[in-house]
């Protein structure tokens, strides 16, 4: 893949916004069938321009207006905000207090940095294939809950472009949810609590709620490969001391001794499980039995959400198909059917697709260029072995149905 140079962004973006950005489908999504008058026109967008110039309250009349403005301003970054009571670009003309955010998709932002305390391979903005499994587990756990517990049907998962994933829930009733209910949903989905000063971040009660039980089943499928082999969390004294901090003190000596005798994280984990189920249950305030094992698994693997992103109706979140200015990667949708195969390093960068387009242009005739262009568009939807659910990978014709999810979703008939 062509290496990405941030200095080339202005040129690359020009090409991207002229030839590659999927305006038709994008507009079709945000217009939601045109059922509610002015829904698209009252949507706030924000642009980050060159030199970090940030402009809010952008709004557009229709698809062609959107296209023209984006091509004119060449934004480095595009955020999507709420649907307001009035056109956002006229908000200064509205009587004070009358300009209100009314509806927005329910969004989630999962960021790898929030897991720094439990991943040994990378930290801060770095990611690798070893820790990416955390995102895979997060997507599976959260998506299952959104679908099966809350009954949400239209969920779009997107790669953020660097170190995490976003989720957009677009059901009609969900867009109308209050801030309080959104916070409640995040609370329901939260299990890992506490900052740097808190050692043990997960405490289960004796009664295990079905949400927790089902999440643990999902984690179990990945735990051995991810935590015991990949992260090797019981590799040596330094790493297993962190696990011991989560376990009652009375068990420490026994575990330390036996860990020395074993040779791999796998073996040590087996021993820990056995020891946990055997310890006497009359220890005050400390649970033994499977809870202990589950609490450790959850602390190392359970998703960590940022409540501030989800609770505000007016919160702005990076748009799908926006480009990440530091990595050049495009925020592509993730196909839920192929979550395990998604490779963030195979996601096209703006340089790679632009250079491809360029190469084709210089070496082939006009009409083949058009074919090649749609070829590339096709490929931004089909990323390596994984495919984005956003568009049907089978055909690149302009009348194709716009799917927000791999499932069939016809915006013309809402609800």
């Amino acid at each position: 893949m062509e290496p990405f140079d941030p200095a080339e962004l202005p040129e690359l973006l020009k090409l991207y916004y002229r030839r590659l950005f999927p305006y038709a489908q994008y507009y079709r999504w945000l217009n939601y069938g045109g059922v509610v008058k002015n829904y698209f026109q009252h949507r706030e967008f924000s642009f980050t321009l060159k030199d970090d110039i940030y402009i809010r309250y952008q709004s557009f009349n229709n698809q062609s207006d959107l296209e023209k403005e984006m091509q004119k301003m060449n934004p480095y970054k595009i955020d999507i905000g709420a649907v307001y009571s009035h056109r956002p670009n006229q908000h200064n003309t509205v009587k004070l207090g009358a300009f209100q955010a009314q509806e927005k998709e329910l969004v989630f932002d999962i960021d790898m940095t929030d897991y720094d305390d439990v991943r040994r391979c990378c930290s801060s903005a770095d990611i690798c294939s070893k820790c990416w499994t955390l995102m895979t587990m997060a997507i599976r756990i959260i998506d299952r809950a959104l679908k099966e517990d809350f009954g949400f049907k239209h969920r779009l998962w997107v790669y953020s472009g660097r170190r995490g994933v976003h989720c957009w829930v677009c059901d009609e009733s969900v867009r109308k949810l209050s801030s309080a209910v959104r916070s409640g949903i995040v609370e329901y989905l939260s299990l890992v609590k506490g900052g740097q000063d808190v050692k043990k971040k997960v405490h289960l009660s004796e009664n295990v709620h079905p949400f927790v039980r089902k999440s643990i089943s999902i984690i179990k499928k990945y735990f051995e490969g991810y935590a015991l082999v990949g992260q090797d969390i019981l590799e040596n004294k330094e790493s297993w001391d962190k696990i011991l901090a989560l376990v009652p003190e009375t068990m420490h000596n026994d575990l330390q001794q036996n860990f020395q005798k074993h040779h791999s994280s796998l073996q040590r984990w087996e021993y820990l499980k056995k020891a946990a189920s055997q310890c006497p249950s009359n220890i005050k305030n400390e649970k033994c039995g499977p809870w202990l094992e589950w609490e450790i698994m959850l602390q190392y693997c359970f998703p960590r959400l940022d409540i501030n992103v989800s609770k505000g109706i007016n919160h702005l979140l990076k748009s799908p198909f926006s480009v990440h200015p530091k990595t050049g990667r495009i925020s592509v949708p993730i196909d839920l059917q192929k979550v395990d195969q998604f490779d963030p390093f195979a996601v096209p960068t703006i340089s790679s697709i632009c250079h491809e387009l360029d190469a084709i242009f210089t070496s082939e005739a006009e009409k083949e260029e058009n074919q090649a262009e749609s070829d590339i568009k096709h490929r931004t939807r089909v990323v390596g072995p994984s495919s984005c659910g956003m568009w049907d990978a089978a055909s690149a014709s302009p009348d194709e149905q716009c799917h927000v999810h791999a499932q069939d979703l016809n915006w013309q008939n809402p609800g």
Partner: protein
Amino acid sequence: MEFSGVKRRKPWLIGDQRKASYPHSLQFYLQPPSENISLIEFENLAIDRLKLLKSVENLGVSYVKGTELYQSKLEAEIRRLKFSYRESLEDEYEPRRKDHISHFILRLAYCQSEDLRRWFIQQEMDLLRFRFSILPKDKIQSFLQDSHLHFEAISEEEKNLREQEIIASSTSLGGPKLELEYVYKIPFADALDLFRGRKVYLENGFAYVPLKDIVAIILNEFRAKLSKALALTARSLPAVQSDERLQPLLNHLSHSYIGQDYSIQGNAGKISLDQIDSLSTKSFPPCMRQLHKALRENHHLRHGGRMQYGLFLKGIGLTLEQALQFWKQEFIKGKMDPDKFDKGYSYNIRHSFGKEGKRTDYTPFSCLKIILTNPPSQGDYHGCPFRHSDPELLKQKLQSYKITPGGISQILDLVKGTHYQVACQKYFEMTHNACDQTHFNEVLKLNRFTESICSSTVIIPYGCFGNTGCLVICCHCKTS
């Protein structure tokens, strides 16, 4: 509702019609009444309901809500005042009608300020909670339906399919027997307080809520609706208040039972400074007792303590002159310069008596205010000992006050359950053994309209009972 000065026409309804207009012994007050009613009945209904809500408040402070004692006392009170409460009784029309009309009348009086609304909503919620708790289970469905709440109980089969999950999710379910429980299916967004803490089973956008938890949801609905309704009422109030017949009554209602009730003016001058030391150990609530002790020991109190204790002293009858003398004497012992006191502290004392600035005659803090706001930090002595003291220290303090071990453990249990005011009540009972419960309740009702018990009584506004209760130190009570 029409108000006529003329003798009312009693609405004569045939038996079934009467039953139909009030099908249940409790209601959400969704529809305002539409009858003609005389001024006298208007006033009587209002006063009766006010008495009822006051009792609800007092009982809620004296007993832990939901316990048998609380329930039976509340039921007795409702029956005494002739309001509706039980479904199975015979001719319930009059009590239910009374309940209906009086609620709406009080809305007029209690919509006017944030404090009044909060108080009114709180008592109405407690009343509704009680009535709902005694509703027979088979009547619940029809009540919910009639109140336009879309909660359907699910069938046995649906319950069985989800039995394990429902049991695993709900902490309120006693044992593994789900057959005996009603379970309701409601949209998840209507069960916010339950699902956010994962206290209910969610499936496909619905919460499966056992009966015990439905109450919380219903009460939340009620609170939200009543709050909105009160806001609306406040807006149309000027029209009502312009009716000269109603204005004095409505004002009287909202002022007489909230806030400035125990007659401070009546108290003024009844205490002499040399009585304070002995009163502090015999009759002060623990919060004031500890403030007084700290003041005597340190010859100083910080701002929070000065406010809480100073207003209390005013409430029990200290005049401005006495207060100035009291504080100055004590602060001077702490090597404060008399001039500095005059400059720095006396203004504030005069201010709290309403003699400076906007001249508000401030009232002593209520228990709720002391418990909920401005928690004490290092070096502070204000606050509520039951709320803010470490349990070990509280225990020692109670022991030094010579409370019996049995009493101490009762108090500590109440504190653990966050029933701080009831704990204070218990403390009062332990330190004033002569007064029995009925006498105590009589004492609680002291207000402008009842006489003091004997002429040499001093009325102490024991913050325990909200803003309105008083502790009467009776001359015939051996402990005063």
